[in-house]
């Protein structure tokens, strides 16, 4: 982008060319603005979930079906993937290519494990009789967690791409910004899960049918 704009150049601490009016990287600014946009996206879905909380007319209700221990494990896995992500970025920025690659693929593996947990959970719920068509809880639960899962899948694909880039040497300290914005996306998906875990699982796991 530097040459394309022809303005002036500032080198950031990691050698990336920052030649912008604010001194901020274009890509990072784009990613943060996009995350702000995604806040509204997930915010709407979570608000919908909360509006419909306790309003399902037929079962199964959350109390019949949600399994806190299993989800706690998958939550933990996703948290640890965030940690791996930040370590990967740290090593790539320091130029420690091998450690960086290792941690990128750790994120990929942990993210995949999280997705497997989700597939298992969806499958299990389907067997016990909760589908998106069963009741309002099913609808809001599956669409919200499903779209979160779609975000995770996209992140996993992106990181596989970057991981191979790191092996081949096209992702290095001087363009670690590419990993950094992928990392921002990944952490954002993680904090969305923090909210979902609290709202859907911890807060409403004891919900039964509508009062009265």
């Amino acid at each position, binding site marked *: 982008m530097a040459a394309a704009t022809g303005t002036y150049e500032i080198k950031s601490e990691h050698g990336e060319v920052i030649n912008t009016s604010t001194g901020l990287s274009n890509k990072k600014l784009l990613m943060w603005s996009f995350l702000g946009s995604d*806040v509204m996206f997930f915010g709407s879905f979570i608000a919908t979930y909360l509006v419909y909380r306790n309003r399902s007319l037929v079962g199964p209700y959350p109390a019949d079906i949600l399994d806190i221990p299993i989800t706690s494990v998958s*939550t933990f896995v996703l948290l640890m993937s965030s940690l791996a992500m930040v370590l990967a970025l740290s090593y790539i920025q320091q130029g420690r290519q091998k450690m960086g690659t290792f941690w990128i693929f750790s994120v990929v593996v942990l993210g995949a494990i999280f997705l497997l947990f989700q597939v298992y959970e969806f499958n299990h719920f389907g067997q016990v009789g909760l589908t998106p068509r069963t009741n309002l809880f099913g609808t809001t639960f599956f669409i919200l967690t499903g779209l979160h899962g779609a975000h995770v899948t996209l992140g996993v694909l992106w990181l596989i791409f970057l991981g191979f880039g790191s092996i081949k040497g096209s992702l290095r300290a001087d363009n670690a910004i590419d990993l950094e914005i992928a990392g921002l996306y990944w952490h954002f998906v993680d904090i969305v899960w923090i909210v979902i875990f609290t709202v859907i699982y911890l807060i409403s796991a004891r919900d039964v049918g509508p009062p009265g």
Partner: protein
Amino acid sequence: MSNFWNKLLYHDGRGWWDLPRTQWQDPNPQMEGPFGHGIAPIKRTWEIITAADYHHGTPWFYVLIGAILSIITIVEVWAFTWETLGGLLIPLMLVLSLAKFILVVGFFMHLKFDRKYYAWIFTACMMIGIGIFVALLLLLEYGNQTRQ
């Protein structure tokens, strides 16, 4: 009196309890505050962990944050099994998840270390989002609706 509070809570305009700023913003403030130099060794340790790199933490610092996040998660799940919490469950869970949220956004996403611009963008979006969605929930919950 106001001097006393300033002395207790602030120096250089921010609280002693605030995490140390990194070189990116300001040099770290002098050791002042209510505990004087007594807190210095702890603070220095913290600085070694946080401010070793130019504007990022060290790997061990991130591991520490990860450990704190795990502990909070364990506390959440443990508190969930606590039947006696009753009405306190929801506020407690919200506070704990808020803590996790801030830790991830602040340290893993580097908002604490990075240029303030990014923090403004994200905070502004969060504020608008929280504002309108809370208003929406209140409207649907307490609106004097004609339907059931």
